[in-house]
């Protein structure tokens, strides 16, 4: 009964989405206020029914209703209740419903926080969001219902994929979807502006906080995915350039370009066409990710079950949304007037250069991701593109952007003088070059990539310090600085920390595959590891073999690591649970390989030493906090009409 209510609620949500899309959009075009006023209540209704549908699915999972096919194939009665709730977004159908729910959440957020916007704009934005909801809700109802039943139901379900039974996986998808779908808001603002033909600084100011919040969520989502892969896959890697990872990374790169370009559009009225295009592109890349993961056109470790019918449906939907918006863009582009003028050496020109680099990086990642498909479709054979391509292309592309990132925030709008900027930055430049050249001397092996990475990282960090010093001089004290300033520099500092971590782990990690008998010792990076054998124990839904490894470093107190190998009862899948000893300067990572004899006394053991890997996660966290801080700046809260003065450097002509 409950699952049928779920289906029914989905149908009602779809009907309300149609109302939310059609009436306000037509009303805005005709200037009919009554029709425009439908947008907000329809959005609330759509949210309510999508939520009901989602709760029905949660209920089916919690009560182990195995007549529901989705529950039978993704859950199991011994699965802890916690994971039964998260299993709702572990499958293709469930995650689509979750996508729709998050879209509905963003929609009511727009409906609530848009009181200061013109009614016509609100109607158009909610209308476009309604169109996107129609696409997803009908996809759910037509090809991917999570509420399909089978009679008689199986006695037992076939368990949630053990890889997903991890708390990193619990929060990763919601954050990622918050990011993807958040860009749907920015997309809708862009389309609404194109429809109305009014692309001005006000449009950029309305979009900006939404873009920044979406970007912060996406950052969190991407980095949680990476953190999960690091801990859960047992390979010690944190980024694999897998198509699905790339699918989340491309919107992130485009979104990063977008939030910077929006700054120029808001402050200086320049780059309007470019900014709109980036807004369309960022959400299009999010949709592309959805398509790639669910259609089976690329092979990936994370892909959902492949179904060409679903793939065709999502492709058709993408054609309408992306193709339609790009056609609208081409049609309206001539109406966009150029903004304020600027010279080649100004904050605008540096942001533009940064944007070009970001978009080039997106193109490089897109090419590498889709290359196997292009070659296959052209009948030229089968191949795969691996990390060597991405590392070789991406690192040189992004390095100049990291350098410009240090200069840009310190420059004036419109134009600045080269000697002046050089004067302000010479100390930072000198220290950064010295750090890059000298710091690797203290490490094992002098590597050019380490010189570059550490140099750039310290360059960014030093310029952030200079920015604070200069601003405090004019503003008096730190607490007078606006949150946007804090947010931007925190995010930049976060990137500096992250770059340092990536540089260190990529250049100086150590890996050791050893055969260990009980009592055997291995040496790595100054640690002595002693293997003490394995024990068996039973978990809630798995049986585990737990190894004990005692680690000693110099005269310090020894500590113990417990790497595990788990066999999940229901599916029989074997999972490797690595044991990690984290610290600020390095991780020691031990994972249990295969037993090498019948008595289980000798094992293949993998040891990794990962210097500064935690800086990566810490840096990302700085970026996320910085994003939220910037989005909560006073000038967005006091509304669109009253504009607060935003510091001397921000004043446009």
């Amino acid at each position: 009964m409950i699952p049928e209510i779920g289906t029914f609620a989905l149908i009602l949500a779809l009907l309300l989405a149609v109302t939310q899309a059609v009436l306000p959009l037509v009303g805005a075009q005709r200037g009919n206020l009554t029709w425009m006023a439908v947008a907000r209540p329809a959005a609330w209704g759509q949210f309510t029914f999508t939520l009901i549908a989602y709760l029905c699915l949660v209920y089916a999972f919690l009560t182990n209703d195995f007549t529901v096919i989705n529950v039978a194939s993704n859950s199991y009665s011994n699965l802890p209740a916690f994971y039964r709730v998260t299993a709702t977004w572990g499958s293709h159908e469930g995650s689509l419903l979750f996508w729709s729910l998050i879209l509905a959440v963003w929609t009511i957020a727009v409906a609530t926080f848009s009181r200061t916007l013109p009614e016509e704009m609100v109607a158009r934005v909610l209308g476009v969001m309604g169109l996107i909801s129609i696409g997803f809700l009908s996809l759910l109802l037509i090809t991917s219902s999570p509420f399909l039943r089978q009679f008689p139901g199986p006695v037992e379900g076939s368990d949630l994929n053990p890889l997903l039974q991890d708390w990193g996986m619990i929060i990763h998808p919601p954050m990622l979807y918050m990011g993807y779908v958040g860009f749907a808001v920015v997309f809708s603002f862009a389309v609404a502006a194109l429809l109305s033909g009014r692309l001005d600084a006000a449009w950029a100011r309305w979009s900006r906080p939404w873009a920044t919040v979406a970007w912060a969520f996406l950052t969190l989502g991407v980095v949680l995915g990476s953190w999960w892969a690091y801990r859960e896959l047992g390979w010690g890697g944190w980024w694999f350039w897998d198509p699905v990872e790339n699918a989340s990374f491309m919107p992130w790169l485009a979104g990063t370009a977008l939030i910077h370009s929006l700054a120029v559009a808001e402050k200086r009225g320049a780059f309007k066409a470019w900014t709109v295009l980036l807004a369309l592109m960022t959400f299009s890349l999010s949709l592309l990710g959805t398509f790639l993961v669910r259609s089976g056109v690329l092979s990936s470790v994370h892909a959902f079950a492949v179904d060409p019918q679903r793939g065709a449906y999502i492709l058709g939907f993408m054609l309408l949304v992306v193709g339609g918006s790009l056609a609208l863009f081409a049609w309206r582009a001539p109406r966009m007037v150029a903004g304020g003028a600027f010279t080649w050496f100004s904050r605008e020109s540096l942001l533009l250069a940064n944007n070009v680099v970001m978009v080039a990086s997106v193109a490089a990642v897109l090419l590498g991701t889709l290359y196997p498909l292009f070659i296959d479709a052209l009948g030229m054979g089968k191949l795969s593109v691996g990390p060597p391509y991405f590392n070789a292309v991406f690192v040189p592309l992004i390095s100049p952007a990291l350098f410009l990132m240090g200069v840009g925030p310190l420059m004036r709008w419109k134009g600045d003088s080269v000697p002046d900027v050089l004067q302000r930055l010479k100390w930072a430049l000198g220290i950064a070059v010295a750090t890059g050249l000298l710091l690797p001397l203290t490490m094992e092996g002098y590597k050019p990539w380490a010189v570059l990475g550490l140099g750039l990282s310290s360059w960014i960090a030093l310029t952030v310090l200079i920015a604070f010093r200069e601003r405090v001089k004019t503003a008096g004290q730190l607490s007078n600085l606006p949150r946007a300033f804090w947010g931007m520099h925190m995010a930049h500092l976060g990137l500096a920390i992250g770059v340092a971590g990536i540089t260190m782990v990529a250049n100086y990690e150590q890996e050791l595959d050893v055969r260990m008998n009980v009592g055997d010792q291995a040496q790595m990076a100054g640690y002595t590891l002693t293997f003490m054998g394995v024990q068996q124990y039973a978990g809630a839904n798995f049986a585990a073999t737990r190894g004990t490894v005692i680690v000693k470093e110099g005269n310090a107190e020894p500590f113990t690591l417990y790497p595990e190998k788990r066999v999940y009862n229901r599916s029989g899948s074997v999972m490797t649970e690595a044991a990690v000893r984290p610290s600020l300067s390095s991780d020691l990572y031990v994972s249990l390989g295969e037993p090498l004899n019948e008595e289980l006394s000798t094992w293949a053991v993998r040891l990794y030493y990962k210097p500064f890997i935690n800086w990566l996660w810490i840096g990302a966290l700085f970026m996320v906090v910085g994003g939220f801080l910037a989005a909560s700046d006073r000038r967005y809260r006091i509304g669109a009409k009253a504009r607060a003065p935003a510091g001397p450097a921000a004043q446009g002509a």
Partner: protein
Amino acid sequence: MKRWLPLVFFMVLVGFFTKGLFLNPREVPSPFIGKAAPTFSLPVVGDAQKAFSPADMKGQVWMLNVWAPWCVSCKVEHKLLMALAESRTAPPIVGLNWKDKTREAQELLARTGNPYVAVPDDLSGRVGIDWGVTGTPETYVIDRNGIVRLKHVGPIDMDIWQNKFVPKLKELGA
């Protein structure tokens, strides 16, 4: 014209995606297609005294199905293989039992039915490497002269059977 470029670029991508929907990225062409099937001699599950070799099948069209008791998608495929074997619409199927470390194959086949004419036991996975097996299940079609004619990666369903195997088998005169 510049403003139409994003749309044009996107439409080209859509073209590729449309084509991509009809391709299977997991299917890697086997270098053995059109070449002689690698030979081997392995003990048979259930009777360690007897051995199986591809030479035993000479003169007839046959299929080699690579499976394992621990493989979940093989269990799905097993139902179809049973139906094919019972209705005699398929040529003889040999089931290469791949890396069966738990030694469950014999018991499993006794319980759920045996669609195979022989079940060679590739415990070490050596023969699988010779044949270029990338995972289970995989199915090969070998013609009367011992030449590999078709390779399918992943479980066979009715659709794949009708559209991929049946035409090839007809062509080979099975």
